């Protein structure tokens, strides 16, 4: 344990000092999602005027020319092809009880990814695509998959593929619990955590386009549109759950369980503020 105690608290103290108060406008107390979404989009379009709005979904590849060329090279025959085919095959194979995923989703699960996550007013919580898929399995007497990769990545890859080009269309119903879930997701997004004391915003709002060692940071606008992703780093597929939990670990924060409320709300917030941007999943990433 090389990191001595003064090190940790010193780093923390200095981080707190450095983030001195910015004379920011008084944030309205009741959250105003439409205004947030507009401010969110304007922040990134003004920060990167040369990037077309729909290109933000390409993450680091919209930030760096050398990376963009490597991406185009991979997109000719992308490594996630196998995952999409596997997902398509799983969609066509019925469960033991004869039903299949198509029976659990509107429009047989085709071309609907852009509507997820949605707020379920009966349950009073956010339902993500990954959660809905595992619930569909459990309702039909099948064991749930890991939320992180392999089968779950294949299913979400296929569903995303069938929605390519459709703009994110996340709704916040007139229900105080929905507003609270949205606000909870926003709070998580901006809250600094882990010994490195980073929040999602530290990297994806303050420093998109900059490098963190070898990787160029993606802008937060449209950051979920390409999910699930085949990352060279993982040399395999990963879902939104895998990305959230590995991000936590990288900044030395203990990740929560995949699909815990915080992550569901975070996905709700991030998808909502990217409304209007096209689904581009599944994606390839460094």
């Amino acid at each position: 344990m090389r990191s001595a105690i003064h090190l940790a608290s010193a780093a923390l103290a200095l981080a707190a000092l450095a983030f001195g108060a910015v004379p920011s406008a008084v944030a309205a107390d009741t959250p105003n999602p439409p205004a947030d979404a507009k401010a969110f989009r304007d922040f990134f379009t003004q920060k990167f005027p040369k990037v077309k709005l729909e290109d933000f979904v390409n993450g680091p590849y919209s930030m760096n020319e050398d990376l963009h060329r490597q991406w185009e090279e991979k997109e000719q025959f992308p490594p996630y092809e196998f995952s999409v085919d596997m997902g398509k095959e799983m969609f066509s194979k019925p469960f033991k009880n004869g039903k299949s995923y198509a029976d659990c989703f509107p429009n047989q699960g085709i071309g609907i990814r852009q509507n997820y996550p949605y707020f379920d007013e009966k349950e009073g919580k956010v339902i993500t695509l990954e959660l809905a898929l595992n619930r569909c399995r459990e309702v039909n007497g099948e064991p749930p998959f890991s939320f992180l990769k392999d089968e779950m990545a294949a299913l979400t890859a296929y569903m995303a593929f069938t929605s390519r080009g459709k703009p994110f269309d996340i709704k916040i119903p007139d229900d105080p619990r929905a507003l609270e879930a949205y606000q909870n997701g926003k709070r998580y997004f901006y809250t600094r955590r882990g010994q490195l004391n980073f929040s999602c915003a530290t990297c994806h709002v303050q420093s998109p386009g900059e490098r963190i060692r070898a990787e160029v940071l993606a802008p937060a606008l449209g950051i979920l549109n390409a999910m699930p992703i085949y990352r060279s780093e993982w040399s395999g597929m990963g879902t939104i759950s895998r990305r959230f939990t590995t991000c936590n670990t990288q900044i030395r924060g203990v990740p929560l369980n995949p699909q815990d409320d915080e992550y569901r709300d975070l996905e709700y917030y991030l998808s909502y503020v990217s409304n209007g941007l096209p689904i581009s999943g599944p994606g390839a990433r460094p």
Partner: protein
Amino acid sequence: MDRTDTRFSAPRRLILQGIGAVALVGLGNIAFVSSAFAAANDKYPEDAFKAKTEADAIKALYGKTAEASDKVKLDAPEIAENGAVVPVSVTTTLPDVTSISFLVSENPVVLVASYKIPAGTMPSIANRIKMAKTSNVIVVVEAGGKVYSTTKEVKVTVGGCGG
């Protein structure tokens, strides 16, 4: 990627050649199964894939040393997005190309890929290779009985902010 010596502990092999405890025996060099679809002279270049330096690999492949040539165009990134998947491609205007090979000087096994180009096939290849760390990527072209090469450094570092 951690690098250690390979130990010969692989599961039972189809055909085991009586090979001494060569350090890199882990490369699984079973006697190449001469099955129908492999033409006679397309034998897998075992020794070249055991070479420790690019000079040895090139000698094992072509029996000659390579001379630099600007007629061999190597397209590789400045900074690899990730060492596991580095898209590199080559094209050349040299006539009568018979073979093209890709080498990475800092990889544990320097030779990465070697292609045989029969007559009528264009001397231009794209592929995705692994790089252990920042290194020179060398592409070698055998044309008209002579061997040419070009080199480009590709930077590779670990991503993410730290475990």
